[in-house]
């Protein structure tokens, strides 16, 4: 139906991933903050994968 659901999911994951890792890099360096960077990058990668899959099937 009209919309490939991978598109919004990929986009959302990419945005949240950038926000998380960006915040992790800029905010005060605590023990936990590196978790934000790492997980943000994982989400960004997952988002990019989704977007790539959506694009490929067009």
């Amino acid at each position, binding site marked *: *139906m009209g919309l490939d659901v991978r598109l*919004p999911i990929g986009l*959302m994951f990419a945005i*949240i991933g950038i926000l998380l890792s960006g915040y992790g890099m800029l905010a005060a360096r605590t023990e936990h*903050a590196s*978790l*934000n960077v790492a*997980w943000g990058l994982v989400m960004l990668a997952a988002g990019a994968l989704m977007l790539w899959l959506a694009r490929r099937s067009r």
Partner: protein
Amino acid sequence: MQLIAIDWVILGVYFVFVLGIGYTLRRYMRTSTDYFLSGRSIPAWVAGLAFLSANLGAQEVIGMAASGAKYGMATSHFYWIGAIPAMVFLGVFMMPFYYGSRARSVPEYLKLRFDEKTRGLNAISFAAMTIFSSGISMYAMALLTNLLLGWSFGFSIWVCAGVVLLYILFGGLTSAIYNEVLQFFLIVFGFAPLVFVGLQRVGGWHGLQTALQEVATSRGFADGAWTHTWSITGDAAANPMGLEWFGIAMGLGFVLSFGYWCTDFLVVQRAMAANSMSAARRTPLIAAVPKMLFPFLVIVPGMIAIALTQHADTSGFALPLKADGALNYDLAMPMLLVHYFPHGLLGLGITALFASFMSGMAGNVSAFNTVWTYDIYQAYLRSGASDRHYLNMGRIATVVGVCLSVAAAYVANRFNNIMDMLQLLFAFVNAPLFATFLLGMFWKRATGHGAFYGLLGGSLAAALHHGLTLPRGASSGVKGGWIAVLDSYPSEMAQNFWTAIYAFTACLLLTIAISLLTKPRDEKSLVGLVYALTPREVDNEAAWYKRPAPIGCAVLAAMILLNLLFW
């Protein structure tokens, strides 16, 4: 704990996307079939993830973590003997009749197979139940956010209800399904870091085992009661569930799980929206793969929480106590979240909690508006109107359904007892359902009268059994024993399982007996509805991974392996 800007931004991004999906889909909603059945156009993998996600309400996530803390790894019985075989059975054996009959809902299948009164009974109790259960889970969510984040009782209720209302109003079932897929990924990515961080804190899997061994010993249960699934079920007293293997395999594995996964329209609707018979059959099988792995995501955090609590002085983490002095297990998952996630990740975790809550609610609402419109309104109040009329009725039902569940949440907050009693009543209604469907699909001689009175008899048997037994330590009333106390069970869970077993058996025997005494239906009218009279699907040409039977076998093999690994 207060959320800061970055947490709110992440939550906000999520809200923008779910509403955006609903808004984008609004122009595809032209007919009632588009609105209630997604025009039967959903690809298998999307339907599969939605199938899983619709069931993944906040109560599932929070409740499974709570059970993980309370009962340990044995909670995975709900997955590895409960859900998975039932999902495989649904996909391989039952879906051909649901999808093939072109019924638009589960109650409608009952109408086609049996008669009007059986459909009416199922439709009305189902509609009431969806409203009520979405109200209950909204109430639970509001309590949680109130406790953790200090939000007022109404805030999360109105925000979530408002967003779910809007996106279903715009995009109907398609919007619910698409958002469920998005919510599924969010739930996985929101909670997965918790498992990493938690395991790190308890010293890995080995550290977790050692700590849980102490938990088991200190409470007088068998060795490994928190880390094994079957080896501790030889004796009901050896494990915290208070169940022996037979009660688990029959009560949960057979009656309860099959009753839920194979007959509940909430989940079956996702498969009915699939774009082909093959896709519909693969829907529950695709869902079974992530479902199998969910114990690691939702149960293990609960186990970590109780392990950390055992060593509270060194770990600095302890589950809070309830008013009566017992550990508040329901807080296992949310407490870990606020305790170990830094801001940013905390926003993601809270968003995942909201996502799980909203996917469950949207599942209820989209199933409610369909059953209301097709099985109650069109069947009994106004038949023969234009398609547009029913489409508009579906939109009205969406608004009314959401309002009613918000009202139910407020009622739950005021009168806890009423809710407990209603929940009990629905348990009685649901317990015998699977017997009816099993006979309906696989025994052509089963008749409408048999099905209807079998269902009533099964519910009555459930009520009787509940009224005559009591879990140990409870007092008579809503927990049971309200007629007389003839027998007691080691735990509430054991009582529930046995109630279901009695209800199923009573319904099965009654339906068979009454069917044999009443006039059979003409066989021609049962083609496509009953196994023996329906031509087999031939799918030998497709690759094995596109055929239900081989996928089902692979899923079952993986399930057995998991059971053995954690034996």
